Every structure is written in C-alpha cells, then in structure tokens.
C-alpha cells in the first residue's frame, strides 16, 4: 500500500497499471490527456504496458478491441467529443464477446472549459447498453478503473469510466492496492462472437440484452450506489450523481433535516434503489454533473406522486458545471455573502503565444482577404482556433475535428469563392485526410492551409502521429497537383512572399494545399530546456 498525490487522470492511469493493463491507446484531448501522458511516461521507464497515441479516437478504440480479442487488458482514453469519433467502434464493440478487459475512459467537459459542447457520455454508455462507472474523487478514480476491468471481463462488455474536468484536473492523494499481473495472451477462439455479420450480430444483440439484467443486479447492490435512508424525514430525499455528490456533501452540514440520500456512481441506473428512496419521501432533489440523465428517467411522461426538483424545472442550472454555490437554492440554503470588486474588470481571454507561427499565417490570410471582394475561411480544433478571437478574428466556422476542409468544400460547391480551410497538422491526420480525398475526387475549388507546428500544441505538445516532414508526401499521394502543393515557412520574414503564394493559389480553380511550417514556440522552448539540462 503506498500513497500518491495525483491528478484524477493520473489516478485512472495508475488504476489501469495496477489492474494489469497491457495496452494503452488514446488521442489527446482536454481534459483526458493526462491519463495517457502518465501511462506513456510510466511505460518509458518500465518498458510496459504498451502505450501509444493513436491517429484518432476511433483507431484507438479499435486497437483496444484488438487487445481484448488477444485476451489482454486495454485502456482507451479520449475526451467526450472523441467518443463521437469512436462511436462506430464503440456501439459495435458492445456487441462483441469482450475477452480481455476493455476500459474506455471518457473525460467530459461540463462548462466547456476547453471544448465545443458539454455532451454527457453516460448517454453513450446507455445507448450501447454497457456499464459506466463515475468516480467522484481520485481514490474512486483509481478503484473504479480497476473495478471496470473486472466488470468488463465479468460481463464481456467494454466498460466506460466517465470523468469530468474538475476531477481530471484536480489533485489529491490516493492509496493504491496490490497490483495484478497482466493477462496471458489468450486469443478469443469463437469467431462467431467477433464477426458481426447479421446472423451473428442478432445473436450477440440478444446476448447483450440478456446480460442487462445481470448488470442491473450488480448496480443495485454495489457499494458505488449507496442509499442512506433517514426514516425521520419523509419530506425530502436527495439523489446525486458524479460530482453532485461532492457539492452536496460540502453543504450537507447546513441541512438540519438530514435528508435520505442515494448516490449513483455505477450504471445502468439502479432502479430499485430509486424506488426505495421514493417510497420514503414526498420530494426528491436531484443533483447531476452533466445532463439530467437520471432526472429524465425519474420524471417520465405520466404523472407521479413524488415531486422532483432538478435541472428540468430550472431549480438547478441546466448549463455549465455544478458548484458548491449553485446547488444551494434547490437545497433551500441561502446564498453566501459575497463581496465584489468596486471596479469593472475587463476579461482576459486566452490568446496565441508571443511569436506563435499561427499568428504569422493568419496575418497573411487576413491581409490577402482584405484585397478580395469575397472570401471565406473555415478553421478547426486546436490552438489556431484562438485566431477567431481579437485581434485576428479570421475564421468563420469552427465545428469539429476535420470539418474545416469538408465544410469549406460544401461552401465552395454551394457557390462561395476564394474558400480557405485552415487545419493543424495533428487535426489533419486525425480527421482531415478523408476530407482532402473528397476534395481531390471532386476537384473542388479550395485552398487548404495546413498550419504545421510539428506538434499537438493545445493539449500540451504531444508528438504528432507522423513526423511533419511526411505531410507533404501524404498530400501528394492523394493526388493533389504538384504545382499546387506548397510548403511555406510560417514566419514574418517571409510575409510578403507568403501573401503572394496564397494569392496565386486562390486564383487556381481547383485543390491547392499550402503547408505552413514552423515549430510551436512552446515546444521549441521545452526542447531547448531539455537540451540545456542534459
């Protein structure tokens, strides 16, 4: 037994290591990135487990399925929107006869600190009919990751561990338990359980539906779903899920009526426990971090005798994170006295770093745009999204990984002129390749600008999946004409030359790809620091 101070993400990583994980895959995405970073660092020192970044979340999850097929345990990490990318593998993986434990760690971002939406991954677990565990602190993050591997092998399903930003990026100490050995190599032998042809898939679906009852039996009795009944108080009870537990407990000492309390940390939703609570109280207050997932089920459509207070009647804010403060009104607690500054404070939004290569590239685009009667710029997910804020304010769309190219294609084909798509190197390899193939096949009038800073910068500078020297060949291989495939240095020194090159490519009525290269200043600084230390 040893004690460690770790981030929530790192607690998951340690749980996987001690849970006998053999392979670790993922794609960087705040707030999930540090799970893989810990695993990568650990495996560098010890030589095991096998840990590598993947091109995207779908390839990562499929690689994890392969590990499971071989009988070994795998962890796959991503942020919530990454699960959308991996959804095909996820929904179908649920039908397989999972052999080695497969744990999918998904970090949601309620409040959208670093994301474009606040989707709740519990819906996805429910959709695929697999189990989901949701820790509320670092200790549970460790314990539940280990438990998730066991459940995956017990019920032969992938198991989701749902994290949220505040847990992923919060540090506390954990106590670890005795590590378990890795599984031996032991390939799944029944092909029918891994080939999802319709006849097999029907049988697998039937099997998954049958196992629902066993999973439910588990969540009705697990200690992760504790129900505490106070028979003295029949007026109200509280249900918490996720970090709602922490904020409720933070305020609980002020509640004179000591309400009955059910916490849900393991899914499928423990229905009998909810009924048992409802039998004892007239009103249920429900505090959920994320969407009103349990609340929606509770309310149903038809009238019920229990009164319910939560997000769907605006007693708790529907958007953003829960906090120890915003749950006080629904609990009947007065707001705390708060002082505010006597002067007005300007906001301080994030911005591109001093000397950032993206800044130079977007200045080129902005100045060329100013010369044109009409132009359109789409952009993508990464640091360069900050070019949408003042002073640059260049991109007109930022949607999801890879959509810069495809949305620009659609806009161009609808009739817009001088359409430019700006995408980062890592995002291009994640989801931009297929869009480029679409453009080449249609000879779309588009200028794609790959801003290649030779790293995955926004999430802290992970290596891009391919060295950036190979990008040009990748693009060439798809059939982009040699004359319209350019690599330019993203530097002020070449500002006028770069403008001229962009003008020329915009006048070309077909696919042009400009790769604007310069290393991220943060990465360069880190490399320099490392070199001077060694």
């Amino acid at each position, binding site marked *: 037994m040893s004690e460690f101070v770790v981030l929530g993400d790192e607690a998951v990583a340690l749980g996987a290591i001690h849970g006998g994980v053999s392979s670790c895959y993922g794609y960087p995405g705040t707030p999930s990135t540090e799970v893989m970073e810990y695993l990568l660092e650990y495996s560098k020192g010890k030589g095991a487990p096998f840990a590598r970044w993947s091109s995207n979340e779908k390839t990562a999850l499929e690689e994890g399925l392969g590990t499971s097929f071989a009988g070994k345990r795998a962890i796959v990490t991503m942020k919530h929107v990454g699960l959308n990318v991996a959804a095909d593998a996820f929904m179908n993986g649920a039908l397989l006869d999972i052999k080695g434990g497969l744990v999918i760690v998904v970090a949601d971002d309620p409040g959208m600190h670093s994301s474009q939406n606040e989707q709740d991954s519990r819906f996805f677990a429910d959709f695929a009919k697999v189990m989901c565990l949701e820790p509320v602190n670092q200790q549970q993050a460790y314990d539940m990751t280990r438990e998730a591997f066991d459940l995956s092998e017990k019920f032969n399903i992938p198991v989701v561990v749902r994290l949220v930003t*505040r847990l992923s*990026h919060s540090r*506390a*100490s954990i106590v670890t338990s005795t590590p378990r050995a890795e599984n031996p190599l032991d390939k799944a032998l029944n092909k029918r359980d891994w080939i999802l042809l319709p006849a097999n898939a029907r049988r697998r679906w039937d099997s998954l539906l049958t196992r629902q009852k066993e999973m439910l039996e588990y969540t009705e009795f697990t200690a992760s779903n504790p129900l505490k009944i106070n028979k003295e108080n029949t007026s109200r009870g509280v249900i918490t899920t996720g970090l709602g537990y922490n*904020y409720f407990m933070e305020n609980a000492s002020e509640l004179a009526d000591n309400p009955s309390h059910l916490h849900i940390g393991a899914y499928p939703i423990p229905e009998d426990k909810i009924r048992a609570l409802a039998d004892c109280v007239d009103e249920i207050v429900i505090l959920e971090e994320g969407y009103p997932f349990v609340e929606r089920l509770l309310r149903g459509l038809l009238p019920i005798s229990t009164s319910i207070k939560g997000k769907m009647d605006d007693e708790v804010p529907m958007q953003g994170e829960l906090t120890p403060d915003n749950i006080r009104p629904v609990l009947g607690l007065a707001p705390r006295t708060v002082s505010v*500054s006597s002067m*007005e404070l300007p906001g301080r939004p994030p911005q591109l770093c001093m000397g950032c290569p993206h800044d130079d590239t977007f200045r080129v685009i902005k100045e060329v745009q100013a010369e044109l009667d009409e132009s359109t710029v789409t952009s993508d997910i990464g640091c360069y999204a*900050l070019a949408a804020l003042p002073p640059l304010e260049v991109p007109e769309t930022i949607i999801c990984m890879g959509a810069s190219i495809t949305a620009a294609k659609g806009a161009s084909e609808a009739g817009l002129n001088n359409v430019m798509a700006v995408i980062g190197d890592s995002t291009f390899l994640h989801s931009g390749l297929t869009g480029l193939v679409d453009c080449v096949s249609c000879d779309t009038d588009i200028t794609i600008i790959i801003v290649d800073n030779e790293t995955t910068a926004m999430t802290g500078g992970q290596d891009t999946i391919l060295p950036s020297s190979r990008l040009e060949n990748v693009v060439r291989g798809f059939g982009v004409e040699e004359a319209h495939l350019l690599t330019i240095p993203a530097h002020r020194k070449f500002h006028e030359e770069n403008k001229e090159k962009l003008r020329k490519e915009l006048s070309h009525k077909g696919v042009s790809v400009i790769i604007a290269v310069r290393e991220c200043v943060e990465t360069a600084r880190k490399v320099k620091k490392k070199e001077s230390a060694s």
Partner: protein
Amino acid sequence: MKYDIILSGVGGQGVLSLASVIASAAVEAGFKVRQSEVHGMSQRGGAVMAHMRISDGEIYSDLIAQGTADMILSMEPLESLRYLPWLAPDGILITSAGPLVNIPDYPELEEVHKTINALPSAKLVNDRELAKEAGSSRVGNMVIVGAASSHLPFSMDQLKKAVARLFFRKGEKIVEVNYKALDLGNKVS
C-alpha cells in the same frame, strides 16, 4: 482546521508551480490537500485560477464555495480582483503589484492598486524587485508564497523543505535563490 486558497494569475506566470510548493508543504505538514487546476485552452495567456483546499478532515468539493476562501494569492493585481466573490469577509488578498498587460483594455494600474488597498485585508507585493534581489527574475512566484507564509497553516521550514524537494534536480544554487525569495517575501508586511 481548513484553509482554502484561490490562486490566480495569467497563463504562463507559474501559478501551478506556486500551487505545487504550497500543496507539497501542506502534505509534509500532515494535512489533506485537494487542488483543482486549469489545463488546456485557458492556459494560453488567459486568466487562470486554481482552488487549493487544505484540511485536517475530509474535503469533498474540489471547488471552494464563494465567500469562504481564507486567502486569494495572485501573481497579477487585476487577476486578484477577479476572484473577490470567493474571499471570506475576514479573508486576506495577497498579490503581486506588477501588472501583466496583454489586453488592450487594461485599466489604470493606480485604480487597480487603490481598489486592492481599499479591501479590509490586502497586501501588494513588489515581487519583481524582490525576485531580482534574490538573484533571479524568475522566482517572483516564490516571493509571493513567502509573502503569504505567515498566514499559512504550516511553517517556513516546511515550505523550504517543499522547495528543496521540488527543485533539487535543478541544483543547489536554484534552491538557494528560491529560499531567499521566500525569505524576502516573508518580510513584506
């Protein structure tokens, strides 16, 4: 015992390493610690904050409730004011006096300082000057920790031990400079 601190500053100012020194000293002193940080997009030159909770009992929430923080500790004066709603009526605000101006609408510094000085309990620290005196312009965050040290629920000795543990790889000289920064900060009244 519980001691809650809001740490603030601008991305890149070393708020997280300041946090790790305090957290490490608190653990050394036998307390439970929870520290909630900001990673990702907001780190890029934007406003950053961290919640640090130190207690001898169970800590449930990662976030400090508004109106209850014992201290706001900030690397930047304007940023220190941003989190006033979290400060308890008897809490103290300690901040660097030096502005980081990377926005076009940064208010008059004098007004920022005046607003801070008007608070019931506040300390403006000339950390940049003191850091230079300690031997490196990069130890401003340790001057700020030093300025907070007399209010923290552990000793200067424990803080120094934490510094030694966190910085020993960087060499004895760097550890010494950080010690000096802590001492100089501590003398600020």
